[in-house]
């Protein structure tokens, strides 16, 4: 092993370790919470077993029905609503709820674990960090509210209880979002601010539904007893079914675009794997530059389809390398590709990104500079045309060097710098 290769290894190993330790820290913390909750509950005795069982059952049921949200996120809305409602209970029927925060943690944790078991049985591993985040969020709400409720520090009118409960529900939601954003920042090397905003944006509607349902269950338990638990879960179930199908079709959408983008490869227009590599690289650059998630999705679509215009060529360009053909022709290909995408009528931004991909970043005559996504695709495409599927680091470095020479007019220096950082980290060029 040469000294240079050894040095290359360092930055690759280091962030991975951070990622692992961050997540395991969270899981360990949740584990400690769980043990503390269970032992204290065991020591002090379980208060109101029937209620605990009902909510534990609801949480387990919700965990069983957990779903994936777009962007590889996990959510368990019903479990979360059940756990928060249990934390915020004041009365069940006519008797006041006197369970402490430790019992909330114990019931929530055990419910979650039981709900996760069937998933394990069919070979779907539990995502411990997501479960841990949920548990911590519930624990926060319980730690604040249980003492208030148990010492009757909170009035018995909705106008005195409700503000406290609403703020706690929001607190729990924020805690979960912040933890999820921290994990994602680690995992994807994004920027924390951007990731947090993305997270809040994705979680807002579901969070609102979960929060409102939790409050409804908590209040209704007072009026209707435990029947409330089942009734107010119904809207969440509908939401969940719809969201599951939504996530499904979104994944299918991406798969389809990925698959159909390969027609250029099968038709011999571009090298095998070109579209996939360019889109992966482009998304990494976009994330490095702090683009928010919706923009990243558009960037991914545009990058996948950036060569679709080549279908209009009679003879494929040798090797499919658009970087080697004249500007006019590049522009024509881009224009045709954009026309194809525009046909769909729902991807106008994507079409625009594809259209402008052949424009140099500092246009000589036509004023406006192309959108950032176009500039990213332009650089990623050129890089891939030069490097191809090769994983040779010297070749990658040479390609970056060549792009850097052209930053005066052709490529966006900011994009090339981001690419250079990525290449030196070797995180996007795995074998």
């Amino acid at each position: 092993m040469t000294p240079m290769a050894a040095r290359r290894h360092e930055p690759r190993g280091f962030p991975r370790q951070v990622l692992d330790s961050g997540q395991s820290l969270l899981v360990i913390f949740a584990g400690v919470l769980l043990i503390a909750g269970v032992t204290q509950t065991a020591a002090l005795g379980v208060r109101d077993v029937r209620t605990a069982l009902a909510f534990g059952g609801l949480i387990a049921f919700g965990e069983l029905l957990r779903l994936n949200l777009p962007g590889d996120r996990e959510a368990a809305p019903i479990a979360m609503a059940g756990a928060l409602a249990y934390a915020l209970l004041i009365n069940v029927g006519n008797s006041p709820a006197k369970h402490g925060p430790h019992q909330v943690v114990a019931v929530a944790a055990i419910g979650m674990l039981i709900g996760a078991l069937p998933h394990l049985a069919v070979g779907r591993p539990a995502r411990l960090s997501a479960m841990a985040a949920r548990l911590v969020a519930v624990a926060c709400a319980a730690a604040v509210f249980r003492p208030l409720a148990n010492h009757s520090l909170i009035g018995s009118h909705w106008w005195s209880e409700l503000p406290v409960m609403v703020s706690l529900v929001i607190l729990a939601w924020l805690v979960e979002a912040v933890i999820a954003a921290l994990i994602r920042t680690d995992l994807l090397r994004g920027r924390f601010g951007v990731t947090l905003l993305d997270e809040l944006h994705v979680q807002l509607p579901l969070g609102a539904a979960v929060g409102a349902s939790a409050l409804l269950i908590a209040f209704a338990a007072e009026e209707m007893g435990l029947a409330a638990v089942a009734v107010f879960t119904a809207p969440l179930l509908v939401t969940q079914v719809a969201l599951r199908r939504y996530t499904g079709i979104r994944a299918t959408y991406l798969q389809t675009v990925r698959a159909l983008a390969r027609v250029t490869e099968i038709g011999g227009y571009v090298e095998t794997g070109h579209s996939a590599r360019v889109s992966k690289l482009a998304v990494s650059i976009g994330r490095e530059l702090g683009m928010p998630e919706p923009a990243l999705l558009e960037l991914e679509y545009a990058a996948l389809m950036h060569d679709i215009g080549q279908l209009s060529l009679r003879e494929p360009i040798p090797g499919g390398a658009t970087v080697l053909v004249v500007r006019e022709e590049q522009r024509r290909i881009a224009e045709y590709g954009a026309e194809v995408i525009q046909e769909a009528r729902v991807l106008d931004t994507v079409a625009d990104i594809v259209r402008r991909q052949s424009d140099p970043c500092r246009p000589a005559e036509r004023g406006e500079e192309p959108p950032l996504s176009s500039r990213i695709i332009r650089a990623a495409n050129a890089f891939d045309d030069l490097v191809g599927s090769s994983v040779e680091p010297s070749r990658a470095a040479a390609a970056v060097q060549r792009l850097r020479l052209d930053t005066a007019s052709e490529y966006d220096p900011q994009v090339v710098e981001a690419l250079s950082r990525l290449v030196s980290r070797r995180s996007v060029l795995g074998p």
Partner: protein
Amino acid sequence: MGKLSRIAWLYIGAVIAAAAVGVARGPFTEVNWAQVAALGLLLVACESTATLLSSRSSVSWSPNTIPSLAAVVLMGPVGAALVGCCTVLGVRRGPSPAQRLFNTGMFTLSAYLAGRVFLLFGGHVGTPKDSAFPGIIGPFAAAAVVFVIINFSLLRGVLLLAREAGTPGARIGLDFKVLLTDMGYAVFGVLIAALWGVLGPFTPTLVIIPLMVARWAVAQFAAQQRAYEATVSALCQAVETKDFYTRGHSERVSRGSVMIAREIGMRAERVEAIRYAGMLHDVGKLGVPTSVLQKNGSLTDDEYAAIQLHPMRGLDIVREIGFLDEALAGIMHHHERIDGRGYPMGLAGDEIPEFARVLAVADAFDAMTSTRSYRGARPVHEAVAELRKWAGTQFDPAFVDAFVTAIERDGWKGPEGAPRSDDQAAATGALPAQTAQGDALAGGLAAGVMLRADVLPDDMLSHDMLRADMLSGSVAEPDEDGLDAPTKPLRAIESI
């Protein structure tokens, strides 16, 4: 609702008058104005989220049962009617003033009558106490049923007078499923009433949030699905450009396959899958090098094999699309024949996946009824006769029958500019004589370059003939055949 007749106006007037009389009779003693305001606001919110039942429907739906029935329990008939009046304030663009007035009258009257029924069945007006609970269910259920049924009947009436009753219920989307949904939402009415004791006027907001999020999620799903469909279809058109096909072939094969699938009563998910299979069935054509498709001169065996591989190539491309399982088999085998002489596997009879047999019929039919550069489009009845002729050898007779039945009932929208068969009865008529061999070749079961070869007996098939067809199938003089649109960019790039 289009322009309204005098009777329709009278009807609307009568509904509003009945509602007004109900309210005017009082008594107003049980009306709590704070509750009217809170529930009225909720009703406005509900009304503002109204969505059309289906894209072609003139009827929209909103969860108005929730506030109306909550008002029935809390305040009885008059209060409920007053809440119903708030319908007029709904913030949405759709309805004309006449529709708005009618809707208001309809919801007011429905709520009033539901309130009367609630009392009739012994319901107690006011915030239900703990003790009210199992007892309230009977009267409330009766009220909910009455509300929904009156709402539907009044709506049916106005549609009848506005001459939209001829449209089948399925098309305007007014069916049993909507009734059930309404009843489901009605349950939340009693929940709001029950929670009023603990949560006061904040109840409606809290109850409505999860419901609105649920509707939002459903809408998101629908929007994503539409976007997906549009994108797939756009990408398929891009594929067609290379293929020199008449624009829209994939789209029409998809539609034809769906017609067959519906006719034979396939489940909805399978119909969806076959829709995409139809769109994607020829994607593999891209795997055939352009140089082969456009070659001047005889095809070598290798090149011929390359052409025969296109269904497999198609499979390669779409394999990674997760949900398409059954559709994948359809795409791969859409050139198989019932008698086992198709490709790529030479499967016969029931060995051929159902999807593939459906696709084959729709594919051949569209190829025959579309214009090609070497011939005009053939009328529908000729194409049908051709399908019939080859049913049992090339096509599954059951699917041919299903397709013909569907075409006879619903018609067929071919490519623009293609001749339509005015006389649909002719579709079932006798087989027109094939005049020339060339026509049999060209017009035969032409799912592209290949099927034309399929129609020939094997001994007549030579690679040269196939190639000759392919050449005539390419766009020598695109403008003559209405093929200009998809090939424009192509020529633009060729000219540089």
